[in-house]
């Protein structure tokens, strides 16, 4: 996927207007289509818009069952449940794993949100802002669309460190929520600054046109 495609896709998910033809061209690329699908899922998760057909409980059960069939885990389960019948041990194991996967699902959504914020911040903040270089930015047409700078320096530090211990509780640091709000606040500030910048530039361009209409020869 090219940088330009990535920028357009990110612009689209940031709510910037992308015309239908551009979007159609963009989605004709298989790699972009996959990225689009992944970002759509993340967005749906953030907005609590996951389709009704998706049954998380059934999914967790199925995954848990597959995991429980792993030989190492079966051995551990056998040691733990020497005194109880096999069916009960399997049920308990399923329940535990089911809960674990349910928790992991929540973590995954939280991580998605956090990653989205980090990438979002970096996307908005990207590009060479030195005045001596011409960044690949354009401010297109009748002020209807701004294409932001390409993403640079995309090192992402892990946001969530969580270790399931099998009991359904998490150990380790789990700072997604506070980090999410902190980053969301920073993102808001960045957006505000950027909007102020764009509004001023827009005002300058409009003023230039307005004044030219009245300037004498």
């Amino acid at each position, binding site marked *: 996927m090219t940088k330009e495609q990535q920028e357009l896709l990110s612009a689209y998910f940031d709510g910037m207007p992308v015309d239908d033809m551009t979007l159609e061209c963009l989605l004709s690329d298989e790699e972009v289509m996959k990225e689009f699908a992944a970002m759509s899922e993340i967005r749906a998760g953030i907005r609590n818009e996951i389709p009704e057909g998706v049954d998380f409980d059934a999914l967790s059960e199925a995954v848990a069952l597959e995991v429980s069939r792993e030989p190492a885990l079966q051995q551990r389960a056998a040691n733990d449940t020497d005194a109880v019948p096999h069916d009960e041990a399997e049920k308990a194991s399923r329940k535990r794993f089911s809960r674990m996967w349910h928790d992991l699902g929540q973590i995954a959504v939280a991580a998605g949100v956090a990653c989205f914020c980090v990438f979002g911040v970096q996307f908005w903040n990207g590009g060479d802002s030195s005045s001596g270089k011409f960044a690949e930015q354009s401010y297109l047409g009748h*002020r209807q669309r701004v294409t932001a700078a390409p993403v640079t320096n995309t090192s992402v530090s892990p946001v969530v460190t969580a270790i399931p211990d099998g009991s359904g509780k998490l150990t380790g640091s789990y700072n997604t929520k506070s980090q999410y709000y902190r980053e969301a606040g920073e993102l808001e500030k960045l957006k505000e600054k950027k909007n102020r*910048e764009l509004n001023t530039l827009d005002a300058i361009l409009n003023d230039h046109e307005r004044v030219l209409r009245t300037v004498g020869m």
Partner: protein
Amino acid sequence: MRTLLKYLAVPLLAGMSVLAAAGDFELSADSAGGSELFANMQKASASKNYELLFTRVSAGQIEPVSFSHGITEAGSISHWLFLDGEPSGYFTKGDLIVYFAYGTEPFAVRNALLPSVFVRLMQVPAEKILKSYTPYIAGEKRIAGRLSREIRLSAVDNSRYSYILHVDSKTDILLGAEVVSHNNNLVESFNAVDLAVLDTPNAKVQNVENASESFPVPVENGGKPERFSWNLQEIPSGFEPVFSQRYALGDGLDMVEHVVYSDGIADFSVYRIPLIGNMDFPVVRQGRTNLYRHQVPPYEIIAVGDLPLEAEKRIAESYRGG
């Protein structure tokens, strides 16, 4: 020795004949023929009744336009109408320009710069234009089903764009134009679709003639120029200051100091404003209009107009302020 001279003489003579041919080419494409054709185009475009339909392609947008011109008892009238979306455009009658747009009050101004480069090419006096551009006849082309001759208005330096004009062979009316950078990249184009040469002015021109009494009162243009404590060391030759004012940029925004320069075809503004603070968008490109930002704390110098970005950079960075 004689053989050696023979070997030297042959390429020398060949080189001389190539240079002579190049000299002939220069003469055949000289500016005299170009100037004459350009003058004829301006005369024809301002003295005939016609309607030209064309598209303006700029910054990835295509806008269909109808341009009408007519000679009436009240004088020469031209009428520019954007054909897509809600009707908007302007018309000129003598030294008056009236802007109109659906849903808004029209406004009028006298002796002001013409709003479109396409119309400027037809109506700005040739002697003013030819100070900064040299006309060459560049060939022939079929445009809108008609044979046209090409004039290249070459900018005298790289600080401005050049123009390729397509002039109808039969009537000398301007059919289309292209704005190109110094390395011949297309920046904006006006592409004729149809030209109708008429015996009498068309309805649009007649409407303007009949509505003369209801024109809005012209606004003051420009105001008295102000002097600032700063200057720009590098203004490209041929550009003259036409505006210089200090005012507030919109409601609640800071005071700005603004100067405008024009060479008759292209204009640019230079603003001195308080630092914006963010520099995520150091440049803006919008068709042939560019914007370049240069920070000189506590100010920001913004050059914006119909110039290549490199020229705007030079201008903005030549700021010397107090």
